[in-house]
């Protein structure tokens, strides 16, 4: 099938719009139609949905979208992926990087961490989510096993954010600290705190966190 550029652009534009407009009811159908029209599934993901997610992130930064829209956009993209996955050839969808992420020991809060994980996946990262209440040794083990590019830690509480320093110390002890970038986030986290404990960055929110991770990978 010969697909004209103009048609292809129109199809991808509709998919981008569906993500931006949080159109979870139609994203699956649009993805299916795109593949049937001859648009490679890889391009539907990268030039359609991922581009749409970028626009969603920009809208969030401009205070036009809020947490509800971010979550909804992530879910919309997941729906699209369900349709596209069977069409993607093995290894075709190259991941832009690998992130090990978790909420630190003693902290049971997972909403923020989950949103970051969803947005990282949507941005093309391979995400290894360790869950909540993760002890330092589990972070170290996961880094050793998965060789990620980035370690992300989350904490909601002033009493648990101190765990982050221990994790960084343990990574150093294991000789793994220099192999990864460390980003931290959560309600009490500041840039000063990140600097103090030797993290590479502190993210104000999920969108900023993903942008920082993307910029690190772009420099590699």
């Amino acid at each position, binding site marked *: 099938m010969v697909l004209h550029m103009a048609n292809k652009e129109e199809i991808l534009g509709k998919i981008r719009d569906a993500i931006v407009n*949080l159109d*979870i009811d139609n994203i699956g159908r649009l993805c299916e139609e795109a593949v049937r029209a001859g648009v490679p599934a890889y391009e539907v993901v990268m030039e359609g949905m991922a581009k749409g997610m970028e626009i969603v992130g920009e809208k969030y930064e401009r*205070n036009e*979208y*809020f*947490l*509800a*829209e971010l*979550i*909804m956009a992530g*879910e919309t993209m997941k729906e699209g992926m369900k349709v596209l996955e069977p069409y993607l050839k093995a290894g075709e969808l190259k991941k832009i990087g690998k992130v090990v992420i978790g909420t630190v020991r*003693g*902290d*049971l*809060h*997972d*909403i*923020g961490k*989950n*949103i970051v994980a969803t947005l990282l996946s949507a941005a093309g990262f391979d995400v290894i989510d360790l869950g*909540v209440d993760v002890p330092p040794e589990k972070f170290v083990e996961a880094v050793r096993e998965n060789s990620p590019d980035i370690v992300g830690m989350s904490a*909601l*509480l*002033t*009493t648990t954010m101190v765990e982050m320093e221990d994790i960084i110390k343990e990574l150093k002890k294991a000789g793994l600290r220099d192999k990864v970038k460390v980003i931290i986030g*959560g*309600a*009490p986290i*500041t840039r000063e705190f990140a600097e103090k404990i030797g993290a590479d960055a502190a993210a*104000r*929110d999920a969108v900023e966190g993903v942008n920082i991770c993307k910029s690190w990978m772009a420099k590699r």
Partner: protein
Amino acid sequence: MIPRERIKMALQHREPDRVPIHDSPWAATVDRWRTEGLPSGISPDDYFGYEIAIYSADTSPRFPVEVLYSDEEYIVEKTPYGGVRKNHRDYSTTPMIIDYPCKNREDWEKIKPRLKADDYRVDWVSGLQSFHREYSLGRFIMYGAAVGYDKVQNYVASERLLKAVIREPEWVVDMYWTDAKIVIEMCERMMRGGFKFDGAFLYCDLGYRSGLFFSPKHFEEQLHPVFKELCRFFHSHNMYVFLHSCGRVKDLIPYFIEEGIDCLQPIEVKAGMDLIELKEKYGDKITFMGGIDVRLMALDDPKPIEEEIKRKIPVAKEDGGYIYHSDHSVPKNVSFQNYKRVIDLVKKYGIYC
């Protein structure tokens, strides 16, 4: 001056003798303080002279609470809302809800009939006994209730609920109103039963560190009318209305003022809620409670917290309209000595000449 008069003056934007004081240390914090000098048998409320007493009714669907699992560190229990929560054994933080009773609207419709007001929802004996004591001490007596989005999160997982705010607004609004109805009816029952309330303390987190959970437009369409009605009811009973909302909720303050919210708490510093900025912008229309950075209370260096109190309280207290509180709650990394000093500093800088 008794606390009740002091708080009322602050709420009326008049200057009492000093800034009223109230705070919320976690149970684990109080346990720590006991080992550091807080006398046994004396509550932090009495020791530090907190000025508010809050009484609540059970406005949940009252599913039986039972422990499903516990070990040295954690306890997993069924919630009265029909979910399952996990917490540290010392209850040193807000719990993690690991299962929710409502996956969809049908689940909610099954729970709804359980949300009827009745007298069994109040612990009358100990509640009234405590109320009479606190009332005689002159404390400002409040009816406390979680409402709106925050309350409904007990039924529906946060991510699911935020999606419903966008996709199933009628369901969300139905949950808000059903809850508001029982909150109002239980307050009426408590008043008929002998409680005298000076105010209502409504809990509804609407934001997090970087912003709002949902847009002001969604707030205006879905929750604003509910808050208006709650304020109308409480004001009709000569009660002031306090709203607790964590997070960066600046953009909703004009709505709160329009609804009739009298006081906003806790003015979370780490979420960019700046007491001085807010006082300047809205100080004549709403009272602020909180805004003192609890992270500075935990530091060994005493200077930052003194600077914080010295800088903020003299501005916030001007023409009344300010009640001291930490900017959320006091965690267990704040020592008894540090906290005692905080209260001394609040009294020092919170005095009106």
